[in-house]
């Protein structure tokens, strides 16, 4: 719990500064065959914070994520990362700039082992070039050895060590969530978009995942989090944005926002 | 420089255009590049040849040439029959092969691959039945007459042009004015939404095959009337068909026809200027240029 408080505190500092947000989205819209999933939405993510993105099902959170991560191009609007316009870049380029994401439903490579899955997250591996894969110069062997060491460290950090030689398809839902996290951490992203990291995870594992997220944040990683578990949001995030029907409903400190009558209506309305 | 290639190009372009309409419809509605579509042109031509020969044998009067044309009433009658029979061939292949793969949820590329196998089987079946030597609807010779200064055409060629225009207008009206056409366009835009809206996707698929095959049959017969009938005619036309459907923008019927005419004209002028031996390369050059410059085609919408 103290860890969480620290996490919130450091994020508060980041927010109070006037510096340019690390991730800045302006007037993003995306429609699917006439249906506006996200409608003119802007978002600032400040370096060092953990921000929550919440809202009822169908609010457009995942569409927003896909646009920020580059899996989906916006119909209109712009996205800047560290001041650079990345609006038209694909997911692979954004990752190389330090913006990573996980998927709501984990997408491990099922026929590869856990370790191989994690190794796939490594960036700038010289052995991933066809020519050096063929001749295996000292450099690519060294890269691979370093990557292996880091991958082992990450599987350890995320409690997957005992599974490292298992095919990813045998993992449980919670383990898949951890594997996704390990894979993306391999790339050392500066900003991570986490799509429901706790969905379908048992309570013990949930505490562990939360502790890992806090540790990451302390190490300087900025995090944007989609989550339905309000307790988790309240404990991790310094700031939340509430979305409904593709638009911003409210933004602010979690405990304030959750009591906002409009937000309550949006949630109850969705339930009714 | 004579204008003659203009006539040859328009005639050949009409044939390519009719075939390309089928390719573009299958591509936009069934969502795969059908390598067997060329074979539907060959089958159309051979089926018409068979029907026409049978009619000629039964009722010799049908063989006497109509007016200025090289063929008798047996050919137009055979054409109607062949449009229907070629449709049945297409439906049979769909029932045996493509439909089953669709139902198994196969990837698009597996459908492409199977169409490649189907093309080989269909083509060689024709070669087995009719042998590889060329066949003709009639042996009557036609003399071309001047239409414009420097431009000569046979009555058959002019008929091909008129028929192509009639077919395209008919298909265009069918797709834009009839309920069946509207469901086809709906499926092409968004299959999931269309089936939610209560459109019978299977009926649409049958329509696509019947329509595509009937047009292919007409194209094949035209080619048989103005040139000759060979089992490999469909294979030779396949690249021009693909080039025209991409040039015209996948899914656009008027686009396919116009692009077909453009490919035909480009081929004719290449024959005139460079030489007949390079004719088959024209489509490839057009294809590469399109993929480089404007992959969505001239009449296609820019990708969303």
């Amino acid at each position, binding site marked *: 719990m103290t860890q969480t408080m620290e996490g919130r505190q450091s994020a508060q500092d980041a927010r109070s500064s006037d510096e340019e947000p690390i991730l800045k989205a302006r007037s993003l819209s995306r429609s699917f065959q006439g249906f506006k999933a996200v409608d003119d939405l802007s978002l600032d993510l400040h370096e060092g914070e953990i921000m929550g993105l919440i809202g009822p099902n169908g609010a457009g959170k995942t569409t927003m994520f896909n646009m920020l991560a580059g899996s989906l191009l916006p119909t209109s609007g712009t996205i800047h990362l560290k001041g650079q316009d990345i609006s038209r870049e694909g997911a692979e380029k954004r990752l190389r700039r330090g913006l990573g994401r996980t998927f709501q439903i984990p997408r491990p490579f099922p026929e590869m082992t856990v370790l191989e899955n994690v190794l796939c997250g490594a960036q700038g591996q010289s052995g991933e070039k066809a020519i050096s*894969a063929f001749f295996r110069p000292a450099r690519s062997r060294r890269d691979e050895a370093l990557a292996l060491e880091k991958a082992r460290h990450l599987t350890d950090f995320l409690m997957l060590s005992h599974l490292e030689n298992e095919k990813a398809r045998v993992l449980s839902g919670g383990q898949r969530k951890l594997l996704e996290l390990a894979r993306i951490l391999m790339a050392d992203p500066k900003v991570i978009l986490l799509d429901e990291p706790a969905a379908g995870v048992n309570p013990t594992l949930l505490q562990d995942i939360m502790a890992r997220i806090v540790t990451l944040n302390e190490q300087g990683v900025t995090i944007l989090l989609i989550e339905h578990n309000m307790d988790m949001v309240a404990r991790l995030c310094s700031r939340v944005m509430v979305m409904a029907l593709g638009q911003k409903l409210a933004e602010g400190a979690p405990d304030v926002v959750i009591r906002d009558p409009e937000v309550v209506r949006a949630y109850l309305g969705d339930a009714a | 420089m004579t204008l003659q290639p203009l006539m040859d190009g328009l005639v050949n372009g009409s044939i390519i255009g009719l075939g390309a309409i089928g390719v573009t419809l299958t591509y936009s509605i069934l969502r795969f590049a059908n390598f067997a579509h060329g074979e539907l042109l060959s089958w159309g031509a051979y089926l018409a040849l068979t029907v026409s020969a049978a009619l000629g044998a039964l009722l010799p009067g049908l063989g006497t040439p109509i007016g200025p044309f090289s063929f008798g009433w047996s050919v137009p009658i055979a054409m109607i029959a062949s449009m229907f029979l070629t449709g049945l061939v297409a439906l049979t292949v769909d029932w045996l092969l493509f439909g089953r793969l669709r139902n198994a949820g196969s990837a698009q590329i597996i459908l492409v691959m199977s169409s490649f196998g189907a093309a080989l089987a269909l083509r060689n079946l024709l070669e087995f039945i009719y042998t590889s030597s060329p066949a003709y609807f009639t042996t009557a010779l036609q003399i071309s007459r001047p239409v414009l200064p420097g431009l000569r055409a046979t009555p058959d060629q002019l008929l091909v042009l008129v028929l192509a225009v009639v077919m395209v207008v008919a298909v265009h009206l069918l797709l834009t004015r009839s309920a069946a056409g509207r469901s086809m366009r709906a499926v092409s835009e968004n299959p999931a939404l269309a089936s939610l809206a209560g459109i019978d996707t299977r009926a649409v698929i049958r329509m696509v095959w019947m329509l595509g095959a009937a047009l292919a049959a007409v194209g094949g017969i035209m080619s048989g009337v103005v040139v000759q009938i060979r089992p490999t005619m469909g294979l030779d036309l396949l690249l021009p068909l693909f080039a025209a459907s*991409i040039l015209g923008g996948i899914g656009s019927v008027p686009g396919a026809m116009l692009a077909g005419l453009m490919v035909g004209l480009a081929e004719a002028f290449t024959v005139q200027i460079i030489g007949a031996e390079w004719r088959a390369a024209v489509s490839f050059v057009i294809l590469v240029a399109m993929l480089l410059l404007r992959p969505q085609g001239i009449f296609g919408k820019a990708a969303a």
Partner: protein
Amino acid sequence: MIDLLSYGAFFLTMALTYAVICLGLNLQWGQTGLFNVGVAGFVAVGAYVSSILTTPAIDGRLGGFDLPIVIGWLGGGLGAGFLCFLLGALTLRLRSDYLAIATFGAAVVIQLALLNLEGITGGPFGIGFIPRPFGTLAEQPGLFAAANLAVLIVLVLVCYLALQHLTRSPWGRVLRALREDEEAAKALGKDPVTYRLQAFAIGGFVMGLGGAAQAHFIGFIAPDNYLPTLTFQVWTMLIVGGSGNMRGAILGAILVWAIWALSGSLVASVFPPDQQARAASLQIVLIGVALCLVLLLRPYGILGEAGTLRAPLRRALRRTPNSLSEGQKTNV
């Protein structure tokens, strides 16, 4: 006895040239999922480039440069690989079947070029007097056949090991990741187009190498050797062997070549000469139907046990066309 042995050696050598081509196609299709309909064209490029480089100088035609056979083979491979690279660069960013259409067109144009560029390719008569490996042994047929067979066995082994080496490297790991889940691989910074392009070009290189080896083994080449039927034969070999499986590709090549050769001689002995062309077309009908049947019933090959690479291919190929097109929409 000697006759039978040297026929056996001849047969096997020919089958192994197909095995090399088939290994190249396996990298493109089995490992990467790229549909190449122009195999015959790339094989032809390999064969012609190598022949022009190695034949003795002749009047009225480009070359020959009388270079060592090894240089010719490498040149043939590079020529075919470069062509694949160009076609891939042109189409891999677009819809997945544009590559199929473009390779089909390329094969048509290559066939035309072989026929018409007489100053380079020798036109319809092709190129003869292609030096054969161990040509000095030609006096002793048995030894010569054995030496040729040995060369091809070594070539197949080298290609097999090299490709195996590649697919087991970090590069191969990315290729597998892309095939298992393209969206997830992109989220990990892997650019699908780059990797597909590389795999397509390397596969083309191997195909060209196979074509070159075949040309030097037969000794003369002509445009008729590179008709679409060749493409179809190689595809049948790969599908029968089980795509994605290197050993399957080699085995499929030998098996299908055996069936092809046997049914060919059966046709020749059973049918009267004037009916043989028809019977041969029936042979192709049956194989076309067989290819479709395999796609319908056993899409992952008749032979070949549970190769680790086949399950992901199966999953990748089970994706419905709709979800595929949806995926494409999001990429553009």
